[in-house]
């Protein structure tokens, strides 16, 4: 067993874990944060995407011990404090960016990382940024629209606070 300490969605946790425990399983089964999904379990589909020290990663392809000492954000912690939803969550709702919703949390976590450094993306850039996230339902068009909606909203919110 190995001891890990991680900060997840702003809260510090310490646990003894088996070194072979995947980060996705740690989040879902130990912390009960089941918003992080496991679709393929083979690092392909992106439904397990979370932020590790601010960068998007696939939590099915990482060990929990590799995250020791790191800060993690999952979909449950994405909305800024004081708001119920992140602009991306609102955007997916507004633009019908989801059908079954299985891929959605991973899509949103990938898009959130992308928008941090690309606040004004083209459609092509959005499609390229979401290459690691598969959706079996929507055909992607409305996902792209949802990200565009969120980018616009985030710009407007920023203009208001500035």
């Amino acid at each position, binding site marked *: 067993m*190995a001891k890990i300490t991680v900060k997840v969605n702003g809260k510090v946790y310490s646990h003894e874990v*088996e*070194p*072979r425990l*995947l980060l996705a399983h740690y989040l879902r089964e130990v912390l009960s944060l089941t918003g992080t999904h496991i679709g393929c*379990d*083979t*690092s*392909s589909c*992106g439904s397990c*995407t979370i932020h*590790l020290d601010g*960068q*998007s*990663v*696939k939590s099915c*392809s*990482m*060990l929990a*011990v*590799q995250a*020791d000492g790191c800060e993690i954000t999952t979909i449950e912690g994405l909305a800024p404090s004081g708001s119920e939803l992140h602009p991306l969550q609102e955007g997916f709702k507004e633009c019908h960016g989801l059908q079954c919703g299985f891929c959605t949390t991973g899509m949103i976590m*990938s898009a959130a*990382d*992308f928008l941090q450094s690309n606040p004004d993306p083209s459609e092509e850039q959005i499609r390229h*940024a979401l*290459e*690691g*996230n598969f959706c079996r339902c929507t055909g992607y068009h409305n996902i792209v629209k949802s990200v565009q909606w969120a980018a616009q909203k985030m710009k407007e919110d920023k203009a208001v606070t500035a």
Partner: protein
Amino acid sequence: MISYEFDYTRPDTVEAALDLLDDDSKILAGGHSLIPALKLRLSAPGKLIDIARIPSLKGIKMDGNELVIGAAATHSDILESDLIKQHLPMFAEGAALIGDPMIRHKGTLGGSLAHADPSADWPAMVLAAEGTVVVQSKTGTRSISSDDFFTGFYSTALESGEIITEIRFPIPAEGTKMTYQKFVQPASRFAIVGCAALRHPDGTARVAFTGVADAPFRDTAVENAVGDWSEEALEAAVALTAQGMEFNVDHYASETYRHHLARVYCRKALKALLY
């Protein structure tokens, strides 16, 4: 999928990692080749030695007339580096085509070279850019030219007890042009064929392929045929692509199709180097 049991350590220095390294242990860097293999129980090491956070293995810097990339630099570190954009722009071009953003945030240059997947992108680029792989063991360090590093299917000149610490590149002279052209397998995102090419100001070239055969290789026949870079010379060079190679064959591409793609991507790469 759950792997066999193993122990895990995360030493702070290369020396400490080398002390722990034995036949029953494996180095863990980004884990994006190793962890999938462990999950499939294709490998059962007793211990993983995590080197991803060792400070001396990170970073990209100039050292005299060489550019030095730490073995644990991630694909996205390389993609975002200003030094890379300035001196080895092909690496930024190529890094952007590796997997997807999440893969690029974890996977490392050293891990990719050590793993030597026959369809990996870095090997072709490192060959074209005349990279030297620096490895350390308990008995010292040695430098391996990329020309001698890739020895076959998932095989390299790395010996047990050695860790790749950095990869060194001569800084290309002003006016050097370079490119990486890749035909992507759309699901896995690995290269079905990838061609890295570099044109020195004196007109000489280095051209290397991945995905085509068991191991990445430099194509000296193509390099020697580019001549004055005229349309005819380039077509003659393209016609020589991967001559006499034993081709990879899988359910994505037959021998004939792969050879065709290699020529097409060779032509794309050479044309991208015209002034």
